[in-house]
């Protein structure tokens, strides 16, 4: 008996420290951590293109390569070696925008996911008061339809979408309170009301479709075309409004053209119910270190699959070339088995989550009794202390995650070890005491605690089960809570329902994964720690967020602690002084460690990345998460298929 426990503990302790949370920077080419060099800096003068493009040039369909590349293309160093052209890569549709075909933001992020690097915006300057951000573009970059990329495409988002009342009914900061000014074709400027030294983080991480092919999109925007005719066209195409039509074209939500052109490596051509088809962008503006125009791979085919099991099966049997988004930590053994039978490689990347589970009680739920319960910090501490994180780590993560409270990643400048340790130990007895202290005791003898007034206390946790092991984690968590006498139920919801119920303030409690815990996103999007966001990730404190956003006109006035929290953050994003910023960031995180506004379980876990044998140049290690846009920083355009 004792021996068994001993063996068990040995395994636990020996693996607990083998977490891949910190990746040495020499795991990647040095150039991936620096601003990308250009051809002229590397004295590259001869450029080559894919054979499939050469044929199209010869037939006169495309202009020659020299006319398509910018004067001074960006040079990307491949992870391993110079690749071969050709082939069609197979991925899942949920991976299509995060892996091989990652999109191009204003700026980009380094491989270690700590700093902002130039991208299409090659240089930027802040004014001394951080109120004016001037940006300079690379010259000669072209959209996939051959038109020029200009400053118009960068101010369009702000001027005609963020400030357009029809597309964005309720403009939100910082976009609401700024101006965008085109200086010339290759430079433009954002002017903020308040200092915004961290706005480059937003631009570096911006999700897709934020650089707008303005010339193309104008024909679908009511400001630039005949409104009546546009609405008529939208109706005919089956959309309820011109905005819906506009968005579906811009965001590639349609099955067939018109689809907006892109500056990314691949362009969506069409979709069927089962598949998305992408082809290479002949105008892509990056080359490898020998002057070969990227990407190497000709086309991408993305299977649209809803069933998680079919995806697991396909990944494990080598039927896709890359899988990272839908792969599940628990399925590691399955993928490892595939290494033998299906010739795949299963890489262990590191999940960029401060905690894979962030549990958020809804402080502004309609139900007053529930609010009172949630607002009592003893209740939240009891919830946290009842969770056996070590056991979760062993059961779900093979002991390779890090049991911790939700807070920033250890590599962050805002990190303190005590933030991660706060109430993260397993103390069911203490949890029971806290609940009993509050008067939440079992009054009817059914083994489950009641409200102090004697009513049944039943809570429903609703969440969307994607990205990370949420369902199995929460099954364990409610089992732990039941052990201290709390009756909680789980309800898995669909994405559409998560979106509408979370933002609709209808969920009693929800769960997301605590990404945004790196230095890129924590300062600008501290979702789990400060009321500043409405979205499907949260049903946490919506009415407070509305109150802050509307300057106290709508929503509900939060308690003083929360106002303090928000004041810290408001100052944090304004201050140009890094030391002060760190101090304020730590205040926010300390507040969470003391009050547990959000509760975490296990973070920094392993993420299985399944790569087919023929796909080359994929780094063996990497950070996987929203903060660095999944595979974006590992330059999928340099991956190639061995022919």
């Amino acid at each position: 008996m004792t021996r068994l426990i001993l063996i068990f503990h040995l395994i636990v302790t020996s693996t607990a420290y083998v977490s891949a949370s910190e990746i040495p920077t020499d795991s990647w080419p040095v150039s991936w951590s620096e601003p990308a060099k250009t051809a002229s800096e590397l004295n590259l003068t001869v450029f080559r293109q894919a054979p499939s493009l050469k044929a199209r040039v010869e037939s006169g369909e495309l202009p020659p390569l020299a006319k398509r590349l910018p004067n001074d293309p960006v040079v990307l160093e491949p992870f391993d070696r110079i690749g071969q052209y050709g082939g069609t890569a197979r991925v899942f549709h949920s991976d299509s925008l995060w892996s091989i075909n990652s999109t191009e933001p204003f700026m980009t992020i380094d491989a270690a996911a700590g700093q902002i690097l130039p991208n299409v915006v090659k240089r930027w300057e802040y004014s001394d008061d951080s109120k004016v951000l001037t940006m300079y573009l690379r010259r000669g970059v072209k959209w996939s339809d051959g038109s020029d990329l200009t400053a118009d495409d960068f101010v369009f988002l702000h001027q005609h979408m963020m400030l357009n009342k029809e597309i964005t009914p309720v403009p939100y900061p910082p976009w609401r309170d700024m101006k965008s000014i085109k200086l010339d074709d290759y430079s433009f400027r954002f002017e903020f009301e308040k200092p915004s030294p961290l706005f480059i983080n937003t631009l570096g991480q911006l999700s897709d479709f934020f650089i707008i092919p303005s010339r193309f999109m104008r024909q679908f925007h009511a400001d630039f075309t005949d409104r009546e005719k546009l609405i008529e066209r939208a109706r005919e195409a089956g959309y309820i409004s011109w905005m819906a039509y506009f968005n579906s074209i811009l965001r590639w939500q349609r099955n067939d053209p018109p689809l907006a052109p892109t500056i990314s490596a691949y362009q969506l051509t069409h979709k069927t119910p089962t598949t998305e088809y992408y082809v290479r962008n002949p105008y892509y503006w990056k080359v490898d270190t020998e002057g070969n125009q990227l990407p190497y791979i000709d086309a991408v085919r993305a299977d649209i699959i809803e069933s998680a099991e079919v995806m697991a099966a396909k990944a494990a049997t080598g039927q896709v070339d890359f899988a990272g988004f839908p792969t599940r930590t628990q399925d590691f053994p399955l993928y490892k088995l595939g290494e033998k039978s299906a010739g795949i490689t299963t890489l262990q990347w590191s999940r960029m989550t401060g905690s894979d589970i962030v549990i958020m009680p809804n402080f502004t739920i309609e139900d007053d009794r529930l609010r009172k319960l949630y607002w009592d910090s003893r209740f939240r501490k009891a919830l946290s202390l009842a969770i056996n994180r070590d056991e979760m780590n062993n059961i779900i993560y093979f002991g390779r995650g890090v049991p911790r409270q939700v807070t920033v990643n250890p590599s962050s400048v805002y990190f303190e070890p005590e933030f991660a340790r706060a109430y993260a130990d397993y103390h069911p007895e203490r949890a029971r005491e806290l609940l009993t202290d509050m008067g939440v005791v079992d009054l009817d003898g059914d083994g489950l605690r009641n409200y102090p007034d004697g009513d049944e206390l039943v809570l429903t946790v609703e969440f969307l089960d994607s990205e990370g092991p949420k369902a199995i984690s929460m099954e364990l968590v409610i089992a732990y809570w039941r052990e201290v006498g709390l009756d909680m139920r789980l309800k898995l919801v669909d994405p559409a329902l998560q979106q509408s119920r979370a933002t609709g303030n209808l969920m009693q409690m929800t769960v997301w994964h605590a990404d945004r815990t790196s230095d890129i996103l924590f300062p600008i999007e501290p979702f789990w720690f400060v009321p500043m966001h409405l979205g499907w990730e949260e049903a946490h404190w919506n009415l407070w967020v509305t109150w802050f956003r509307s300057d106290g006109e709508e929503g509900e006035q939060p308690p003083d602690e929360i106002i303090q929290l928000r004041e810290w953050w408001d100052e944090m994003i304004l201050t140009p002084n890094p030391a002060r910023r760190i101090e304020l960031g730590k205040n926010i995180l300390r507040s969470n460690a003391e009050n547990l506004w959000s509760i975490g379980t296990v973070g920094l876990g392993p993420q299985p990345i399944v790569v087919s044998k023929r796909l080359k140049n994929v780094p063996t290690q990497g950070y996987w998460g929203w903060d660095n846009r999944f595979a974006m920083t590992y330059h999928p355009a340099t991956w190639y298929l061995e022919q």
Partner: protein
Amino acid sequence: MSEAAAIPAELAEASSARLTWLRFKRHRLALWAAGFLLVSYIVVGLCEFFAPYDPNWRNPRAIFAPPQEIHFFDHEGNFHLRPFVYGYELNINPETWVREYTEDPSRRYPLKFFSVGQEYEFWNLFNANLHLVTVEDGQYMHLFGTDALGRDIFSRVIYGGRVSMSLGLIGVVLTLFLGILFGGLAGYLGGWVDSLVQRAIEVIQSIPTLPLWMAMSAALPPHWSPIGIYFGLTVILSFIMWTGLAREVRGRFLAMRKEDFVVAARLLGASQMRIIFKHMLPSFTSHIITIATLAIPGMILAETALSFLGIGLRPPVVSWGVLLQQAQNYQVIVLTPWLLIPGLFVILVVIAFNLVGDGMRDAADPYGGRH
């Protein structure tokens, strides 16, 4: 083939129930199946006693552990009168990440029969701790292995059986009630009642069953207690299943209205109720029972289907559908197939019900037994 000659004296005087039983006995498979079902219902009825563990109890030392073998001989070859299992030794293979369990010969866990084990609340009535088979405190026994959270599949199969098999039974009682009520009314009264019921049956039967179930169970309020959802599901299943039975009952009534014994009863001044319940119903009870028997497996399967789709019963309720929902995982088939054991029981029980139903149909059939 000559029948008169073949009938022994005792059969000539046997009651109709006895005749049915004798005919039923000839379907050997049906007989076995009936025995199997009887045993199953006893086991799930007393599942607290038969299951060694609470279905939601977790053994953190055994995650995805394979079934333990029952031994009589230990590793040195010594015979033990009391069977035993070996404790697991766990090793997470650093190459394959697979949890590999091996028997640890130094830890022999003898099985104890009719012995004290985990405490339970029997039928929510009283506390007890007697189990059919268990092991010493601190030891463990997982005859069907464990799942992702270390829960004992053997116990979960038994507890899940209670939910699934009773759901079928309760559902069928409801189905019978609805079917006989509406079928009887339509068949006996005829006229516009008949047309109304006929149309209703037609409508319900024209909607594809599963989508209708799906839509209806999606409409069950999520905040209902597990028991509420359980009964809600039962009602939903019966709501669709009664139509087949009602059709049958109606047909029989229609045919029988003109039979001599019914006419005679009516002429003798028997009340309608009396005619229906005393004279008409008993004459085709065996048919009703047959149909009911064949409806139960449909309900059990429907429960698994709805749970699989995530709109049936939900944990912490343990039903076969819930168990299979957790097992319907590609990794399970490849690496931990013992999680599919609940499926085996679904198959066995469904087949058994069908065989019993077949046997009863043959037995109730006046033409049966010719060959």
